[in-house]
């Protein structure tokens, strides 16, 4: 959860913070969608490269360790997920690897192996693109920009409130976790479960008290459902629309002609001794 705090600091100090939030969102969404509608592995690789370059520019190559760990954890999940896809192949096709591991029946085919790589690159491209967006767009600026999309005010207000309260709850939760640790609260699985349960219950109870105090505090400041922003984010220009749709269409066409250019199974065949 501390990644959230790091990400917030990163977003406010980003070199792309003044770019139009909706423009960045449209750009990222176009690349994410084109990534899943094409079968060429090159398209997500290009999207991944764009995501990495944007993230590097946004953060000036200064990614905090916590964010790097979060990305590493996401990649681990992707590797495991892609691995699952690769071993659940179609039984009507010849297997390049077949066997049994615990309760898993492994049936890897050339197609399932290639699909696993495609999905891995789609996922990793998605993470870099979303992080490039998140590391350059503070949530309050994004929620302000969302008003332009006619999203109900109540939802926008909730987005801001949930975001702000998440920090407060996180702070309280970490204090309780630390306090439990000081009392050897993680000595043994049963004790750990009780400490964990106590911290969560305590955090919610604290949150109810916080809700009452916040209501009074906001009312004292004439809160009428909107949080003022002193530096308003830029509006999305036509250039963003042209750039986003142009790149998406270009990548889609590129993907149509490069679907079979890279065959990961054939690349790895000599290494694993597969006869393809």
């Amino acid at each position, binding site marked *: 959860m501390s990644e959230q705090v790091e990400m917030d600091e990163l977003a406010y100090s980003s070199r792309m913070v003044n770019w139009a939030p909706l423009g960045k969102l449209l750009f990222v969404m176009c690349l994410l969608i084109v990534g*899943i509608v094409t079968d060429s592995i090159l398209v997500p690789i290009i999207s991944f490269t764009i995501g990495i370059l944007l993230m590097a520019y946004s953060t000036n190559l200064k990614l905090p360790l916590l964010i790097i760990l979060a990305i590493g954890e996401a990649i681990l999940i992707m590797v495991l*997920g892609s691995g699952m*896809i690769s071993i659940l192949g179609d039984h009507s096709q010849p297997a390049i690897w077949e066997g049994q591991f615990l309760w898993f029946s492994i049936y890897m085919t050339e197609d399932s192996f290639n699909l696993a790589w495609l999905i891995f690159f789609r996922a990793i491209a998605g993470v870099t693109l979303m992080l490039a967006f998140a590391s350059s767009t503070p949530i309050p600026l994004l929620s302000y920009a969302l008003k332009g999309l006619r999203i109900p005010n109540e939802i926008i207000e909730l987005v801001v409130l*949930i975001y702000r309260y998440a920090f407060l709850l996180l702070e309280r939760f970490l204090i309780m976790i630390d306090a439990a640790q000081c009392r050897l609260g993680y000595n043994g699985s049963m004790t750990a479960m009780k400490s964990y349960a106590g911290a969560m219950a305590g955090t919610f109870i604290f949150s109810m008290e916080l*809700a009452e105090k916040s*209501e009074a505090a906001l009312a004292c400041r004439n809160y009428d459902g909107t949080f003022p922003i002193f530096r308003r984010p830029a509006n999305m220009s036509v250039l963003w629309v042209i750039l986003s749709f142009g790149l998406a269409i270009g990548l889609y066409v590129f993907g149509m002609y490069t679907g079979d250019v890279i065959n990961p199974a054939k690349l790895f065949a000599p290494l694993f001794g597969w006869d393809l």
Partner: protein
Amino acid sequence: MHIMEGYLDPLWCVVWFVVMAPFFIAGVIKLRKILAEHPEQKMTVALSGAFIFLLSSLKLPSVTGSCSHPTGTGIAVVFYGVGVCAVLSTIVLVFQALLLAHGGFTTLGANCVSMGIIGPLCGLLLWRVCRGAGAGAFVSMFVAAFIADLMTYVVTAFQMALNIMTAGDGNFVDALIDFLSIYAVTQIPLAIVEGIVLGMFAHYLFTSRPEIFEITESNKLNPLSTEA
């Protein structure tokens, strides 16, 4: 349990968004009514969302292209019903995708259906059954949170097995068994812990501030209900 970005076929991304849409719209309408009639509930609704965010961010990698964590939706669904829970879950899922690289935009519909709609709906149903049978707040909330959590993972496994069937021509039953059995290792203990924690919480609230539970009586089981 969030399915990662890029994992689902475009077909399933669209299907799950279509499934999610009516519940989300009903939730927004209900939320607007709640906030108009009970403005004092605004902070509590927001904090329920923040609490879902906090709990569901405590994740453990699971060998499925997904991960395991408490869902935290049990409380929100009992207080505000399925529609509002779907709205809160959607907001939380967007935050998690952006800030924690957890889940994704194209898989948002699928993740919302599992964590924000079907899981909580089952939880609410069990809450009603237990309360109707005269069970206490602890037992009722334990059962509701436990089932909401478990059903979330059952639905996620179902969604991923469907995707395996159409994307890779894999066997649906084999894939479903594999996904369910892996989730079970991490999720059953987590669901029990979540049930105990939320049960303790409900018991505390029921003894210290029973008036908060009055709002739960007006919740309709119909997930598309917009009555506040």
